[in-house]
């Protein structure tokens, strides 16, 4: 049986259970999603965009799914205590793929009109609002993993910022994976930022320390309306037995400004897709990310920025540090459509292979159909600068420390992109700890226990 067939069979046998524990808005897309899954299947290594991550093998194990929404005994505050210190956030939790309603900020902490909480519940309470956006950005035809997520996702997180509302405090969502058997979760995030509104969301992924395998599928849709400003930080600090397949879809209105920063501090196998479309002119996107991978870990990023209209500006920078036998891949596609004049699109992917066994694949793809644009791309794969290493050692800095400083320096410009000072400081600490090898497990959960 192919990897995908077990999901198709599961869906047909549990269709009612899935629907009963979700909302009509989410249920409405399931049949189409499964039909797509049946006709197209999951991506394989033969698909050009998936050559570096064997999606089928990630989906092949017989994972448990919590379709009946059985409560998982957990106190998220206990699992996740230190979060980002000195950063006061509005904190929410999703445990596996269920929103954790018992722990969330008091309603009065949010500006009026802002909705934040369980996607399933919000879809029941505000069906028209959610239906206007749910599944509208996440193109199921993109690849089978999006279709599969749409077929099975029952809950997740919903954030709605009405027109003109500025949420000063960063909003933080902590995803926790926990299970006693090999486990699959299908999470869904839906974010709507109204005209002229502003917000910042930090999403952290943590895995419980256990020997079971996790597969986390996450689809995140972000709608940023005209003149709005939105920051999306995605930080993974999971475990070596966690596989994550995540897609982020961004739609941007005119003059909007969006920052997406995807950081992989610790993981098993991570495949991230970032799709972004400019729907209105004079919008700006900063898409960046970094990853530190070692041992047998793997990180694979695909980005697609669609300059559909003129006068938009995108700036892309991804940096990876690979050690031991780690694998990395970056494929960045930028499409400047016919008539999208005065586009500015810059892409950079820089990678450091700190060991001879580490491997990095990088592939910039610029497709330009307009003639009055400024675009550039640069991809590098290199080793640590031996001259710099010797220089530092000659000043008494031990080799291991010198290597650490150089690797840290390498990732620094991605951290510099963060527009939240407290998070920036925290990230520096986390990255330094990671390079010192102190973060064998996720420190957010473990260090403070």
């Amino acid at each position, binding site marked *: 049986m192919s990897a995908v067939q077990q999901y198709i069979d599961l869906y047909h046998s549990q269709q009612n259970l899935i629907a009963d524990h979700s909302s009509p808005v989410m249920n409405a897309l399931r049949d189409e999603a499964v039909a797509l899954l049946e006709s197209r299947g999951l991506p394989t290594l033969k698909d050009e965009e998936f050559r570096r991550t064997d999606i089928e093998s990630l989906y092949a194990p017989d994972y448990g799914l919590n379709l009946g929404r059985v409560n998982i005994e957990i106190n998220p505050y206990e699992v996740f205590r230190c979060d980002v210190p000195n950063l006061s956030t509005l904190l929410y939790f999703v445990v596996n793929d269920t929103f954790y309603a018992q722990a969330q900020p008091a309603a009065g902490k949010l500006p009026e009109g802002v909705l934040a909480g369980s996607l399933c519940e919000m879809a029941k309470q505000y069906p028209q609002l959610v239906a206007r956006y749910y599944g509208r950005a996440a193109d199921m035809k993109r690849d089978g993993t999006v279709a599969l997520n749409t077929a099975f996702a029952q809950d997740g997180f919903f954030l709605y910022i009405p027109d003109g509302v500025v949420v000063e405090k960063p909003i933080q969502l902590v995803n926790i994976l926990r299970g006693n058997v090999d486990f699959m979760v299908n999470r869904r995030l839906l974010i709507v930022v109204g005209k002229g509104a502003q917000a910042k969301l930090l999403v952290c992924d943590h895995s419980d320390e256990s020997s079971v395998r996790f597969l986390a599928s996450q689809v995140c849709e972000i709608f940023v309306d005209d003149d709005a400003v939105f920051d999306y930080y995605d930080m993974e600090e999971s475990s070596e037995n966690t596989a994550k397949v995540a897609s982020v879809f961004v739609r941007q209105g005119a003059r909007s400004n969006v920052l997406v920063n995807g950081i992989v501090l610790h993981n098993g196998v991570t495949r991230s897709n970032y799709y972004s479309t400019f729907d209105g002119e004079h919008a700006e996107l900063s898409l960046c990310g970094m990853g530190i991978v070692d041992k047998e870990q793997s990180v694979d990023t695909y980005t697609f920025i669609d300059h559909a209209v003129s006068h938009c500006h995108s700036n892309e920078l991804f940096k990876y540090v690979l050690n031991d036998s780690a694998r990395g891949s970056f494929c960045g596609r930028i499409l400047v459509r016919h008539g999208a004049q005065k586009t500015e699109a810059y892409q950079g992917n820089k990678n450091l292979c700190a060991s001879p066994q580490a491997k990095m694949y990088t592939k910039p793809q610029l497709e330009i159909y307009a003639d009055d644009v400024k675009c550039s791309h640069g991809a590098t794969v290199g080793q640590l600068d031996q001259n*710099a290493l*010797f220089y530092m050692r*000659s000043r*008494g800095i031990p080799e291991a420390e010198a290597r650490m400083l*150089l690797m840290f320096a390498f990732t620094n410009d991605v951290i510099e992109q963060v527009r939240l000072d407290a998070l920036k400081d925290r990230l520096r600490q986390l990255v330094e700890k990671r390079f010192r090898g102190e973060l064998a497990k996720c420190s957010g959960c473990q260090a403070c226990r």
Partner: protein
Amino acid sequence: MLKITDLHASINGKEILKGINLVVKPGEVHAIMGPNGSGKSTLSAVLTGHPAYEVTRGSVEFYGKDLLALSPEDRSHEGLFLSFQYPVEIPGVSMVNFMRTAVNEQRKYRGLEPLSATDFLKLMREKRAIVELDNKLASRSVNEGFSGGEKKRNEIFQMAMLEPRLSILDETDSGLDIDALRIVAGGVNKLKSEKNATIVITHYQRLLDYIAPDFVHVLYKGRIVKSGGPELALELEERGYDWIKKELGEI
């Protein structure tokens, strides 16, 4: 303090140093001169432990210790310092962080507690003044975007911070204008004491006008072929190296 005996070293199988003998005592300033390609920079690289060079024969004693058995970082901790001919730019590593790590690693080696942030910044300020290094440079990445003169001043600043027992100045005068040369040489002289020693590697007499050597050695084809007092440098300036080649019977 330093005793080099019959030192042979090669890079990629090519022998560059072919039997160097040199003794340096505390308080002394030695100048090593010689034509291009004679092995001057190789000598400094070998002494500081550059991994590209292989020592094939001979020994180097530093205060009784086998210097060649030590890692580059431990040679530094023992009090050896090289002012690089081409200081390396390290983007993303701030001078402050770099220097604090270096100073504290040295203290750790000597069994001392790390300096507090305040004490460290005070020390930086004090030492910066010796070479008139701008505070702005101290907060930037190591050598990144520094002019030639600033890089060399930064080397001497690091020397001041680490207080070595033996400093090797490798072509510290190259790329310096007169003013920068005076500042750099002034810094070196301020740091001079009876307890430490300096090896000045240079092409020209010019630097030796500012840093007065006690001994001058001529390095040629991997060997010290002539040694003398300060007057030897003046003679070289006047007559070039050909007369030495003649003495060796090469011309």
